[in-house]
């Protein structure tokens, strides 16, 4: 966990006003401790991603929330997908797991509708 000062010091060229606006827009969601922002690793990584979207990919702040919303939905789906896989692995008998896998392969090949 790091403070906003350290985050800015570690990211040369990061403008504090930009970062504060991203937080205000809820694009970055640091925690708070005693009234000041604290950034977890995921927040630091998210700031890095936003900067890459802005700078390397030239995406302006009008389009950014659309992309972030899709990214968030993508990862939410991936977490669910992993959780579903874990749940099947932990609860379903082996032969059911094999049947499920075979069924999915068949479907993907267009064998089942």
């Amino acid at each position, binding site marked *: 966990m790091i403070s906003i000062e350290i985050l800015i010091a570690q990211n040369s060229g990061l403008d504090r006003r930009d970062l504060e606006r991203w937080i205000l827009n809820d694009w970055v*969601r640091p925690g708070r401790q005693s009234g000041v922002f604290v950034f*977890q*690793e*995921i*927040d*630091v*990584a*998210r700031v*890095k*991603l936003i900067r*890459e979207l802005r700078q*390397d*990919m*030239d995406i302006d702040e009008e389009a950014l929330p659309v992309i972030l*919303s899709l*990214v*968030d*939905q*993508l*990862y*939410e789906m*991936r*977490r*669910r997908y*992993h*959780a579903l896989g874990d749940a099947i692995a*932990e609860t379903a008998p082996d032969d059911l797991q094999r049947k499920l896998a075979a069924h999915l392969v068949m479907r993907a090949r267009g064998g089942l509708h």
Partner: protein
Amino acid sequence: MANLDDPYQTLGVARSATPDDIRRAYRKLAKQHHPDLNPGNLKSEEAFKKVSAANELLSDPDKRARFDRGEIDAGGQEQAQGPSYRNYADNAAGRRYSRGGPEATEWSAEDLEGMFGSMFGTGRPRGDGRIRGQDEHYSLTTDFLDAINGAVRRLTLPDGRTLDVKIPVGTTERQVLRLRGQGGAGQGGGPSGDALITVQVNPHTHFERSGNDIRLILPITISEAVLGGPVQVPTPQGPVKMQIPPHSDSGTELRLRGRGVAAHGGHAAGNLYAKLSVVIGTPDAALEEFLTQWKPQVPANPRKSMEERQ
């Protein structure tokens, strides 16, 4: 280790490309291959690494000129990447950015009904009086290396029971481990709840983790820096030998591929990045004598960039 592909071909630009052409080509490829926008796609990840390295080389006029003159090759441009969003967003830490906020449960009854049909409506008593036990939450503090390499730790619960908790390889700070059926007892013949254990990882004195990579400051002697030579580098899996190239300096970062967090759960093994730090120690008479006599051919001023800024 070295990526010897032609950076011009990687970016799809001519050798005569202007800086603008290069920026545009990089921008296009970054949009296509950025690994945080293509999670789980190793091809994109590899492509993005190549593209970044090529851009790193060609967007720096000095490096590009040296490459064009054949003074350097395309290897060694791969930059230490910072933390990757996908590594966090893919596990429980990512819930912070769920659309419903971190407290939102990710599975609603509607979701489950949509998937399995209404027969699986969960969480509600089934009418036969069987109620699943509550999930119980605990926290467990672990050493840095146990979290990296995996370990089994015994946890004593408030009610005196003990649980052997398997900490998987590559466990991250705040990761939640679920032990099925180790929570509160069910009622009326219902199943027990789960124990949910939040892991806290103690920092390490030398290693620092960033995603699946490990960083470390590696002290070297002045002669190892100037002349190069073999040194032992601690890694989470034990010490390994590494060759320091001649003419290294404080701040030079060397990579030990695959010596970071071991491969786990679909993640490839991370790398270890050793940042060199020259340590002089107590100089002996011979060194003092040498330095008194020494007249460098090209006097160096390491503070030049600071003076220019003032």
